């Protein structure tokens, strides 16, 4: 039962994290592409409770930033105007989960922009971009893992179930895929696909590239499970009763692979989110103005950004809780599937 409880704990953590990103419109105060040319590279704004006269305010407030004379990225707090932070404020329109038209945001402020994590070179709110960018990166990871697992399941099951020359050919085919360092392979595959495409096309392109690269390992694992499953007594009995291949596969053999597939999913999804980030970081993935965790970081390749605007690094930290969550999930799944093998030692 401990395994179950652990599994449930990590699932709750992950559902909460994904919910936060899925409802980015609500948690983000602004639209991710909305620019404010008066506020380029504004540093994260501070929330105060005590103002300059020493009065204590009931709600947290902030001083809007004003650009210093003669500079292009230095700001002063405008201490004459204390703007209070409003919870559940009305703001720009968005569609909740892509469906429900909505105007309600978790927080906001009337009269001035509140950018808790600063802004980028176009004055776009960094917090909103991180939240919306997460949708792109996580979706790429989830879809890519889906593609990989279906490929791996199909190929591995075919190889293991039918055996013979098909098994031989398919397993030889996995070898170059297992041999290549995956990032080189990802880049090699990406190299031969069009570069100048619209953001949406680019997104599906890299999802397919990411999904196509990693099928070999799950295929091998599935093959192993299928090989042992098809020799089980109840499967042999069903075959003896004249059950067709399709029935045997669906009813008896493939269900055996579920725990391997789930564990692989927990391992692959964060890896693929990182793959999207890496590709977009290198300029080979999702292009602007669409935000993704990878292309938000691409800015840091400029030395001046690196030295002056540390908050541009924050998107890199966004993936850390997701990595933790999926790592926990993967180990919980392993223990749940095989409590005796992993329980001791690791």
């Amino acid at each position, binding site marked *: 039962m401990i395994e179950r409880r652990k599994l449930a704990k990590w699932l709750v953590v992950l559902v909460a994290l994904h919910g936060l990103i899925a409802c980015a419109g609500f948690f983000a105060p602004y639209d991710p592409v909305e620019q404010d040319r008066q506020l380029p590279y504004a540093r994260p704004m501070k929330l105060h409770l005590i103002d300059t006269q020493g009065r204590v305010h009931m709600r947290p407030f902030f001083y809007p930033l004003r650009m210093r004379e003669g500079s292009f990225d230095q700001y002063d707090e405008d201490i004459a105007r204390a703007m209070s932070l409003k919870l559940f404020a009305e703001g720009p329109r968005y569609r909740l989960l892509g469906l429900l038209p909505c105007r309600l945001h978790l927080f906001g402020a009337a009269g001035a922009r509140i950018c808790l994590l600063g802004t980028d070179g176009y004055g776009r709110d960094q917090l909103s971009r991180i939240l919306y960018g997460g949708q792109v990166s996580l979706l790429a990871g989830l879809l890519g893992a889906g593609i990989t697992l279906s490929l791996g399941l199909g190929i591995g099951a075919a190889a293991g179930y039918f055996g013979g020359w098909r098994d031989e050919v398919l397993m030889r085919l996995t070898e170059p895929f297992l041999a290549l*360092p995956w990032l080189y392979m990802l*880049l090699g595959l990406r190299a031969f696909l069009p570069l100048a495409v619209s953001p949406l096309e680019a997104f599906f392109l890299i999802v397919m590239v990411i999904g196509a690269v990693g099928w070999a390992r799950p295929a091998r694992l599935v093959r192993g499970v299928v090989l042992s499953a098809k020799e089980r007594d109840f499967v042999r009995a069903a075959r003896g009763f004249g059950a067709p291949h399709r029935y045997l596969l669906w009813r008896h053999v493939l269900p055996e692979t579920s725990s391997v597939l789930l564990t692989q999913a927990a391992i692959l999804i964060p890896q693929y989110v990182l793959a999207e980030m890496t590709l977009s970081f290198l300029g080979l993935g999702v292009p602007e103005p669409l935000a993704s965790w990878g292309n938000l970081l691409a800015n*840091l390749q400029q*030395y001046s950004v690196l030295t002056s605007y540390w908050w541009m690094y924050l998107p890199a930290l966004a*993936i850390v809780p997701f*990595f933790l969550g999926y*790592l926990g999930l993967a180990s919980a799944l392993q223990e749940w599937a095989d409590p005796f093998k992993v329980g001791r030692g690791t």
Partner: protein
Amino acid sequence: MRFLSRRLIHAVLVLFGVSILTFLFTSLAPGDYFDEMRLNPQIAPETVVALRAQYQLDRPLPVRYARWLNSVVHGDLGYSFSYNSPVGPLLWVRARNTLFLTVTATLLSWGLALPLGVWSAERLGGLPDSLISWMMAGLMAVPDLALALGLLLFAARSGWFPTGGLASLGFESLSPINELRDLTLHMFLPVAVLVLTALPLLVRHVRAAMAGVLHAPFLRAAQGHGIPRRRLLYRYALPAAANPLISLFGFSIGALLSGSLLVEVVMSWPGIGPLLVEAILSRDLYVVVGGVLLSTLFLVVGNFVADVFLYWADPRIRAGPVAK
């Protein structure tokens, strides 16, 4: 020796497979290096056609592959359009830098992982063990991209480390000691990223393998003979646990190569990584194929080294398969 020769043939076959695979993708790819020229009104369409013919891009795929194989034999690895030179010499210089980085990182990460893993397995469930486990879990949750950028940010703000490249300006005029110091400073951050990202997996496996061996009767017997603890751990227990670790060694090289590509781009280390990304963006076909192939070669060589180790360490393999 049959085991080793079989592995060698296998390695060569994998290299062939990869080269055919990458070439196949080139034939599926829309467009080539000269596409942008075609859009340029100042260049006559005939010129573009002539250029494509000159570089044999108008030939069918098998012909191109055969010609490329021929140039591989001569050490050219095809021709780079944007550098206007054979790919081979371009790659060798870069490959040296990449190898320098990955070999250092491999040695260092194993040099750290072995004692940490052994220590952890020795005190299974104790304070050092849980401390190391927690640290490794924390490290595992920080992906290499975030770690590399974080360290770079740290270097840029603190000014303690150079933020890129392999050597400072005027490197040649430095005295040998200062040269070494300069190189170490430049290597510190890239190597640190590679080691820190590789470490958690290695430590976990060393610990698991050692934990499986430590309770074996032969070790208790050795302990009974009064053999000192350190000698017991490293001379008796570690070789017994080495088999899965040697396979992991081959695998870790692949992971380090992938990590190295990214780290090279982030920290502008003049290795294969930046060259490859640049080549992809300009569709410099043979550089991409060469870069991918070279990384496979490294990996295959690494795996072969692991096989040699295995042959040396495991008498069961040396004796050949036992008839069942």
